[in-house]
């Protein structure tokens, strides 16, 4: 964080600052302000109409549920910039991320970044610091975004061809050019990328960013996606984070979490999961079904849940078992962690990470033991194994019935979220979606560009 903001702005010849936050849908939202406006607003915050949290991805106001006190007749809420995130985004342009607060100086309960900060604080009060890494998957296309729009986001050509599967290196130069440009932009922005590569489906890619504290990891996620979009636009390409844009393999946002205490990995034990990992995992498993609503937020999110295709379909965890919903990596003092494999690429990582940590906190507090680890393949199982909810409405119903996760996350956030999920369900069914066909035009139009 610069010690003298005015000097930093002058030194970098900044002529505009993009102030950024995240709404419930997971889109990066914000506006651009002059350097003068930026410095004058640092204390008061920057006013946004509360509709920033009140519009769906189709630009319709979401109604049908009780609103918290900060939502009124387009009342103002205020984005407070977190100066630790201030960077020079491009020559002359700065970027800063913040959270939303109400006029009385209280954090807006539905602000995903605020929620994640609350959960991080709860862990800190228990003596732990989480380390998080998010796997960022997306699909890149040869067409420009304008061409994609003109084609209704259908019949597009995956960049890099349709042959092969994950990890192939025999990719054409246009694909390499895109990936290298994204990696270079991340480097310039100080986002410590670790790896990128070809993923399972045509045109599908994955970027891995280094582990960080939860809020920083989520900020990295938001900024990396922004970079991926901007580079695609610059190169005349387009990119989507839809969980499933066609009948090929879907795309995920696996979250890797470990806890540190006094600089040591608290999940590590030479004989398997530590006691801390066991209880954290117990809470995560106990809240996995209600947390699905956050991990799979959209209608299309659930199309990804296909047996044998990678995403988990059953509520199970296992050591090194990638067919389960939670994979425990154990026995390494540095790498022992939990991999939460439910979220789709369309998930709002601030929110889903808040939900994962909330489950972990509940587990630590309640000393919850997880079910027995699952050693077999967790797909295509006979009846009896609890399944992950497979529709947006079933997941919402599970969250509505839950008290454990809600008790940590906060009733106001959960109620507001559930209202928006009911709205999404209603819009799909009543404005052109069809539950009995493959991917619908309604979904392509709604989810291709956002979140």
């Amino acid at each position: 964080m610069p010690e003298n903001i005015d000097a930093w702005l002058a030194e970098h010849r900044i002529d505009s600052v993009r102030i950024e936050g995240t709404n419930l849908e997971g889109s990066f939202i914000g506006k651009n302000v002059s350097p003068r406006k930026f410095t004058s607003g640092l204390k008061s915050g920057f006013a946004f109409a509360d509709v920033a949290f009140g519009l769906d991805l189709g630009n319709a106001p979401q109604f049908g549920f009780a609103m918290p006190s900060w939502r009124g007749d387009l009342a103002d809420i205020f984005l407070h910039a977190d100066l630790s995130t201030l960077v020079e985004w491009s020559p002359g342009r700065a970027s800063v991320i913040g959270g939303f607060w109400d006029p009385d100086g209280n954090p807006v309960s539905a602000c995903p970044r605020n929620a994640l900060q609350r959960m991080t604080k709860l862990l800190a009060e228990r003596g732990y610091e989480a380390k998080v890494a998010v796997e960022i998957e997306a699909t890149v296309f040869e067409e420009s975004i304008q061409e994609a729009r003109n084609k209704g986001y259908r019949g597009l050509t995956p960049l890099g061809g349709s042959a092969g599967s994950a990890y192939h290196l025999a990719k054409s130069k246009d694909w390499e050019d895109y990936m290298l440009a994204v990696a270079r932009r991340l480097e310039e922005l100080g986002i410590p990328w670790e790896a990128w590569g070809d993923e399972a489906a045509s045109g599908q890619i994955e970027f891995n960013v280094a582990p960080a504290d939860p809020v920083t990891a989520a900020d990295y996620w938001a900024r990396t996606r922004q970079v991926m979009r901007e580079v695609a636009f610059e190169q005349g390409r387009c990119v989507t984070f839809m969980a499933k844009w066609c009948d090929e393999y879907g795309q995920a946002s696996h979250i890797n979490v470990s806890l540190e205490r006094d600089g040591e990995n608290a999940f590590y034990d030479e004989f398997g999961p530590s006691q801390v990992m066991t209880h954290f995992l117990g809470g995560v498993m106990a809240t996995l079904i209600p947390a699905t609503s956050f991990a799979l937020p959209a209608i299309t999110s659930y199309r990804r849940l296909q047996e044998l295709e990678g995403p988990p379909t059953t509520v199970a965890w296992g050591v090194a078992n990638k067919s389960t919903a939670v994979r425990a990596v154990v026995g390494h003092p540095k790498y022992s962690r939990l991999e939460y494999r439910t979220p789709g690429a369309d998930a709002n990582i601030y929110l889903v990470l808040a939900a994962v940590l909330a489950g972990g906190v509940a587990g630590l507090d309640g000393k919850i033991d997880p079910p027995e680890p699952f050693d077999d393949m967790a797909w295509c199982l006979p009846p009896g194994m609890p399944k992950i909810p497979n529709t947006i409405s079933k997941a919402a119903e599970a969250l509505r019935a839950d008290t454990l996760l809600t008790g940590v996350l906060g009733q106001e956030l959960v109620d507001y979220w559930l209202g928006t999920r009911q709205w999404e369900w209603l819009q799909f069914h009543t404005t052109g979606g069809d539950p009995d066909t493959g991917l619908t035009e309604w979904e392509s139009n709604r989810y291709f560009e956002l979140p």
Partner: protein
Amino acid sequence: MTDPAVSVVLEDDPTPLVLTVGRTLRAGTRDPESLRLIASLRETVVVKSKDDPQAVTIRFGEIQVGVGHGIASDPHVVLTVDLTDRFAVESVDGAEPDAPLVTTVLRLLQPPLPHWRDAASRFWEMTSRDPGMPRELVVVCEEEELVLGGGLPRYVLSGEAEKLSRVLSGTDVFLDEVYTGSLAVRGTMTQLSVMAGASLKVRFHA
């Protein structure tokens, strides 16, 4: 002879249209004449929207009526309807438009509207304790006024008698009518949202 007992069973994870049709048929089972009609049917009927992919299949049986989304492969009749106009029929496949099966099903899907005062009272009874609801709901129909509950905050709803009956009984969608101007409201944006939710509750679960 005792009245036939017929239950309306919805599919697991019902769609909005399944809930709406289910609520309408369930209301019929509480009316002796409608119940007699329901109990007399054994056919499978598809009701589908003229405007979008929404569709339900209704299977009338001896002791239960099953309602699920989608179009069955074996319907006796398919009714294409206007969902914004109380299931008004646009076309009929599999039977003559005036066939007894068609008229009976339509009679069940288009029950007589309650008086707007009765609809308002039932609406208030079902929703007034929901989070965020106003303490007082004032329903205005021309020169008449019905005050439900008491105290502040207050919400005012006004419109013609039939429109009020349709909206407050869950037949029409509150938000659609506000957007089109056929229903006028006075209150906050927050209350509009809550009232929209209350309307959906009545439409889907009354």
